[in-house]
């Protein structure tokens, strides 16, 4: 069943919120894709059921289970971002998207595993296998395409990042992954703060952007490297037991806490910002980005393959992109996310 079908069954009293929640908690507990289960889920299910029984209208997805990539804060649940350095981290508050889910009567079942400070192939796998009706993730286009599920990478800024562990601050966007375009659209409407617009007509042929991928790598590593600096073993991050002084505390804690891919990104980011490299690489990356963003201003929508070369276009320009189960993505003008989902389903 899709998420909207589950919501309809709950609304028609064919199934209770508790039954659905129990069913998906059991699936989550048996799945290696989940790293944490929300122990409050049954209690929250009872509260939602009571509101529905009292005739309260919560949302078109009230009572439906949802899961979150493990870089989104839920108070009382660990948030490790797939990293040893965050292993013991407990968020102090709920992410804004989580507050919106709760207000809309959705039940957070648990957290999904992810690559360290990166994407979550496990989220796409869990949705594809019906271990969860849908999930919230950060840009997960490649995994969604590989698993044949729908995913919206929303317009940058349409969804609050409060309570999302920052990775690439100028590109991070929380979006849904689901088994139908309608589910993606319904979930995005609950978590977003945006005034959506309709799609201008027609597919657009895009010009080539030969330097976009390099610019994207430079900017994303520079930003990720800066964001990773907060894991210092002092205020945040597991501290190395081997350090004898303050500098060693920083260096050893980070070296022992980060995996190889994260070290690679952090080093490359530092390299791009160091000395003459700022002018030689980083500044040019920002100029390429400005040039590319201006060139994409008039684009209504374009169908593209899902790969690094094409994914970076929507990332750099902050445009929405919807991945379809056929493995293609449609990139659209800013704030056409919902129209893209409806168009993609048509």
């Amino acid at each position: 069943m899709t998420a909207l079908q589950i919501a309809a069954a709950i609304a028609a009293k064919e199934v209770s919120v508790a039954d659905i929640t129990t069913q998906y908690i059991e699936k989550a507990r048996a799945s290696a894709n989940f790293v944490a289960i929300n122990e409050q889920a049954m209690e929250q299910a009872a509260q939602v059921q009571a509101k529905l029984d009292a005739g309260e209208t919560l949302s078109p997805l009230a009572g439906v289970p949802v899961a979150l990539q493990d870089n989104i804060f839920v108070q009382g649940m660990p948030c490790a971002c797939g990293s040893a350095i965050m292993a013991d981290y407990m968020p102090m508050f709920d992410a804004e998207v989580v507050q919106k889910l709760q207000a809309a009567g959705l039940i957070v079942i648990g957290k999904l595993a992810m690559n360290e400070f990166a994407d979550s192939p496990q989220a796409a796998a869990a949705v594809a296998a019906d271990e969860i009706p849908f999930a919230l993730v950060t840009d997960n286009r490649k995994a969604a395409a590989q698993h044949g599920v729908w995913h919206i990478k929303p317009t940058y800024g349409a969804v609050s990042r409060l309570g999302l562990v920052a990775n690439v601050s100028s590109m991070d966007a929380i979006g849904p992954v689901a088994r139908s375009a309608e589910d993606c659209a319904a979930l995005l409407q609950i978590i977003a703060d945006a005034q959506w617009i309709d799609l201008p007509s027609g597919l657009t042929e895009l010009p080539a952007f030969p330097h976009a991928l390099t610019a994207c790598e430079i900017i994303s590593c520079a930003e990720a490297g800066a964001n990773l600096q907060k894991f210092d073993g002092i205020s945040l991050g597991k501290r190395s037991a081997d350090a004898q002084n303050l500098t060693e505390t920083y260096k050893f804690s980070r070296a022992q806490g980060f995996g190889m891919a994260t070290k690679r990104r952090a080093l490359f980011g530092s390299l791009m910002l160091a000395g003459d490299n700022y002018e030689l690489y980083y500044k040019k990356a920002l100029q390429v980005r400005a040039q590319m963003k201006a060139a994409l201003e008039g684009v209504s929508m374009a169908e593209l393959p899902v790969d690094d070369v094409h994914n970076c276009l929507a990332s750099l320009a902050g445009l929405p992109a919807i991945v379809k189960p056929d493995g293609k993505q449609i990139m659209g003008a800013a704030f056409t996310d919902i129209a893209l989902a409806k168009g993609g389903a048509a």
Partner: protein
Amino acid sequence: MINMKTLQDLTMLALSPEESTQLQGELEQKIAGMAEFAALDFPADAPLCVTPLTHTNMMRDDVVHTHTPREVLLQNAPAHNGEYYAAPAIQE
């Protein structure tokens, strides 16, 4: 040639000799592949794009609210004394 000691200092990372050698090779290969990018020539006044957002910030009202309690802020610190983060001494 990339100075890995300086780069590790900038990144605050203590790599093992094996990691350092491997990552130096990878980074140098990456830089070598970016020659065309480095040769791009933009006018001095070419615009920069640091964020795709073009919208004006919506400011909220400046209202007094309760701050996060100290004990909550310290709960994720690797070490603390109840009042402050605990760090190795930097002088005797």
